[in-house]
């Protein structure tokens, strides 16, 4: 299978978790599928969440980037020890004036940011329309984009480097070297050696039609092995490492 591989990195990133807003906004540790599709949508110029209503386009089931790109399969490898990016909670003011109606017009924001995130991303065409896939590969390989891709906030431009097409083959080994989705019992993961690590994060996997809020899945990154009957679908290997596409 042909796959488009690239390194996605930046000094900082923040992929906001939607579940709390009282004190601190937290970030996911890894770029999740919906955010990644949004970033790719920016590259080839698809529109985002902007209310279709606002622009008189009638009610849509999904934002354009998701509607077009969701058939794509992706695989993400965090390039860091144990899959853990260091994070820091930043405290800053939004003093534009209209962000807060309290006296002084100052909005205090606490936000957790990822430091120096770096992922290797694989894309597979799967059921994506051939013309869109070709366009995407073309833009990526030539380092072109329509809108500026960023890592969760437009203060954090994304660096996309080492873009190339690689050949992957179907594989079925028990150890997966990328993030993968797994809803089974974590006790069945087999490690046993002291350098064992297990990273678990419930993060968005898709959008709900019409309302567009997230649906979640449990992403895992580990050096443990999986039981054979629990292996996720779409496993591919480049001869050295095995990647799970989702």
């Amino acid at each position, binding site marked *: 299978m042909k796959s488009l591989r690239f390194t996605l990195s930046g000094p900082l990133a923040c992929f906001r*978790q*939607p*579940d*709390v*807003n*009282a*004190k*601190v906004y*937290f970030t996911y*540790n890894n770029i999740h599928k919906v955010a990644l599709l949004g970033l790719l949508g920016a590259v080839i110029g698809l529109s985002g*969440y*902007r*209310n*279709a209503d*606002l622009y008189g386009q009638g009610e849509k089931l999904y934002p354009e980037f998701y509607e077009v790109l969701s058939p794509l399969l992706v695989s993400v490898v965090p390039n860091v020890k*144990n*899959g*853990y990016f*260091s*994070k*820091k*909670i930043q405290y800053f003011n939004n003093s534009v004036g*209209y*962000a*807060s*109606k*309290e006296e002084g017009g100052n*909005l205090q924001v*606490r936000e*957790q940011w990822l430091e120096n995130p770096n992922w290797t991303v694989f894309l597979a065409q799967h059921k994506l329309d051939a013309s869109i896939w070709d366009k995407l590969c073309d833009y990526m390989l030539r380092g072109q984009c329509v809108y500026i891709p960023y890592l969760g906030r437009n203060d954090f431009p994304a660096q996309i480097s080492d873009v190339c097409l690689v050949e992957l083959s179907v594989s079925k080994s028990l150890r997966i070297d990328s993030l993968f989705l797994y809803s089974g*019992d*974590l*006790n069945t993961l087999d490690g046993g050696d*002291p*350098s*064992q*690590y*297990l*990273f*678990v*994060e*419930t993060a968005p996997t898709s959008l*709900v039609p*019409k*309302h*567009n*809020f997230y649906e*979640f899945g*449990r992403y895992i*990154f*580990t050096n443990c092995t999986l039981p054979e009957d629990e292996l996720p679908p779409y496993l591919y290997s480049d001869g050295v490492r095995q990647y799970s596409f989702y």
Partner: protein
Amino acid sequence: MLKDLLNEFVNHPDFDVDTMVLDNYQLEPGLYIRFNNYNKMDELYVKKNTDLPENDPLVKWFKKADFYSSLIEMNKPVDPKKKIHSNNLFTLFCKRDIFYQEGKVHPELQEHIDRYFSALLNPGNRETAKILAAAHYEPLPEESVYCSKARFNAVLDTVAEYIKKEDIRNNCYIKLFLNAEEEAYVYESGRYLLPKIFNKNTYNINVGGRILGLSNTDMGMNAKKPFLEHKTTAFKVPYRISTEEALLLRKFYLWLFGQGRGGRPLYNGYIPVWEHAPQLLLVANEVDVRKPVIYLHFERGVDLTIDDCEFLPSFSDKMSKAIVFTNYFDNCLDKSSYKSGVLDKLSAVEAHINENLYAFQLVSNYDVKNIKVTEKLSQALANQIMLSREAMRAWLRKGYFLPMQSGVDKITMGVILARLQKLEFIPALAYALNVRFSLMKYFREEEKDMGLTIQTAYLNLREKVLNTKDTASCENDLEFYLAVGQLLRYFFSLSQAQTLHYDVLWRGITAARDAGDIKTEYRKYFQRYAHEININNPRFNNMLSIASSYLPKKEEPINLDALFYGFAADKIIYYKDKEDDKNDKEQ
């Protein structure tokens, strides 16, 4: 974040969530009375520091009934005027001042009770009715509400008598309960909770027959912060969940709120992933085997707010490489006072650093927004804590040592310089230096052991000062800085001032740009105290000649470590070795 936390909370094989919450549920101070049939009653008066017996059936009953009958928050009352704080027809909670006045039932109480019970009967808007209907709740039968109301009305005077008898003067809660089955309490609490569990029912939407609403846990919309709403998306509010999930989240936060150790509430902890130990929330020294954990830190106010949360894929309090805290002053200071030794637990290392480097000021100020300057905590130290606490916490609480590894030199020296302004006693400087040297050795393995090098140089200097008959001269920069430190300490000892202020002495030293400035500085003190110094003191003369004879290289950085070591170590000029001691005694 919340979904991962809930996964751990609900999948416990041994406990259901209600038991877990009730296990550490605390009764607020107040008077609790249960009315049984035939006008019998059971009372429990909880004062602020009452230790309740754990297995007492009555206490257990009150905990359960209270848990199911309390309001989610004051902004979600049943009684529209917020005077009555219970949520169902079996209970009547209010503050003592609402209930009682001048030895009798408060004249306005009846009005509150009427309003409360009519609010129970008419729960209000369409949205509420819709939610209750979806959960198959029938409207409350009028006669049971009137019956409860009559029962409460019948006992008001008895309760007022009781308050008078017990002489309850503070404005604590008066909580009255009718004895009903636990199931009835649970069922009725659902009638209150379901329509109120979301932040606001106007945000509810129906997706595939299920009602999803805006979560109320650590989440809110605020008219004064218009951009909490997502202006450009179709979903507008950030996080919609089902009623079941909302109820679970409320219970999870209540459970977290009740967490403590040894009678003191916890502010942070570790939840091991997929392990389901009986103690779901562990403190650092309980995580002794490397495992994936969720680190949590929370703020306690009226409610609980999570203000830090990170997933740590492989965390253990036990360090993979132990750290050796060496006493580099073991040749001079009283050995017992600095607790040197090998530490292999992050929590122990934290305690050691907190004590010896930060003078007990670090851990208590991890989360303080504006660190308060006090007698013991100078502005300079507060600044240093602000600069270094995130790196310290990442290492000591999360096991992530890279920020410390890169910043150890700057952080430890910065704190020591800040400490000098308010140094309580000279050995404190030695302790702080010990921590600095030990940490430098730990994080910079490839470099030479700085502490040991300086210690060796100090011993050579001592040898030289004690045993040189002619004028001693300086060999290297280490010797020069050690000698200057020694001289300054000596001058210091000659001062007649009642209280000595280190900062006067150190301001010049820390502001010095090169060795030349340092020389000027110590000469200043030499001039000031020269009248006190005997011209025939060979040790002083040697020390002075070592310091004066050194010619610094151009643009050589000041070696503050050696200078501080020289200052904190024993004064060679006053040196007495064991032989001397013996001779003294023999004479």
